[in-house]
């Protein structure tokens, strides 16, 4: 697991999993079909990517395919970093 993958898994576990939800996050945990990403939690995740990872995600890249799980988010970050 890369450092970015670990940071994302930790952030999602600590900040997006609601109290009382029995979810252990890993890089393949579905984020949309599990209900983890609603409007507010999507905003929290995007702000983490921008502020802490240093990669702002433009609206045009906010496709649900890019936010299926941590693995697809890491791929998106790598793509945005290479531009």
């Amino acid at each position, binding site marked *: 697991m890369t450092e970015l993958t670990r940071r994302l898994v930790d952030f999602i576990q600590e900040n997006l999993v609601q109290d009382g939800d029995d979810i252990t996050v890993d890089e393949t945990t579905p984020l949309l079909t599990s209900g983890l990403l609603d409007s507010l939690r999507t905003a929290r995740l995007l702000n983490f990517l*921008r502020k802490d990872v240093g990669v702002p995600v433009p609206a045009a890249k906010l496709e649900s395919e890019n936010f299926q799980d941590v693995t697809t988010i890491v791929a998106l970050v790598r793509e945005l970093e290479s531009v």
Partner: protein
Amino acid sequence: MRYADTYISGVGAFLPRTVISVEKAVAKGWYPAEEAELHNLAGAVVAGDLPAPEMALHAAQSALKRSGRAPADLDLLLYASTWHQGPDGWPPHSHLQRQLVGGDVLATEIRQGCNGMFIALELAAGHLDAAPGRRAALLVAADNYGTPLMDRWRMGPGYIGGDAASALVLTKETGFARLMSVCTTTVTEAEELHRGSEPLFPPGVTVGRRMSFAARNDQFRQQVMAKGEATAALFKIQRALMEVAERALAESGIEAGALTRVAFMNYSEEIVEQRCMAMLDLPMSRSTWDYGRTIGHCGASDQVLSLDHLLMTGQLGPGDSMLMLGTGPGVTVSSAVIKIIDNPPWV
């Protein structure tokens, strides 16, 4: 959409003097203590038995007086509402026609929830542009949530309802501010977010059903999770908010970092910070949350009330720009940019 030569010449606000604090609401058992801690809201303005159309009339009179325009010298009156205004079947704008602008001004009600003022701005700007000689439109929003079937303290997740009215005079002649852009999109996949599992017929109010967006939001989540559709619709709402903000700023030729202030809905501290200000990479000091938290979420009026407050307290002046953002049932997502070009004559 980008607008050329469309101005704001008057702003009006009516806020009831009574403010009920969150502290009192918690002590009375109206508002859960954990919600108070989570959302950091301060209170809500409460109108008692003052009808929304009366508040609308006060705000409209103020905006017109400040604009220097005669009440009948208008081409359009749009009245945005989110909750029941008076006797069902009776149009609330007819009160303003009879009491203020007369019968020769085309008038209608905009029932687009909390985005009503954005829709009114776009419709009014288009109406003024559509024929030569049209000069001005009066846009009004008002609500009083102190009715049966509504609980302002449990209206929805992260907000409490406040009673108020606001008004704008939009004009093709000069004004103190220029309307640069208004954008709206609808996330149709989230249509059931504000419907929940309620039947369309008979309408809930006709059978005395209480109104709660919080309950309907919960029902929506249960429905989409059961269908395997999950929360992709909610994800798309945040994407839409980013899109309309980016589009309005691009159409206005203004970078987010150059915005003087941003007015979102009067929601919780975390929602305003995470969904709006951090999205724009701006500090909370440039939001209107510190004001909004003291009055509550006032239907379609939040952004115009904040504009009025910023002008009256000297926090917006010539050269400043302001972004307004909002969401409403549908789910509609809207943005507008205004640029202050002169000191308002009434300040």
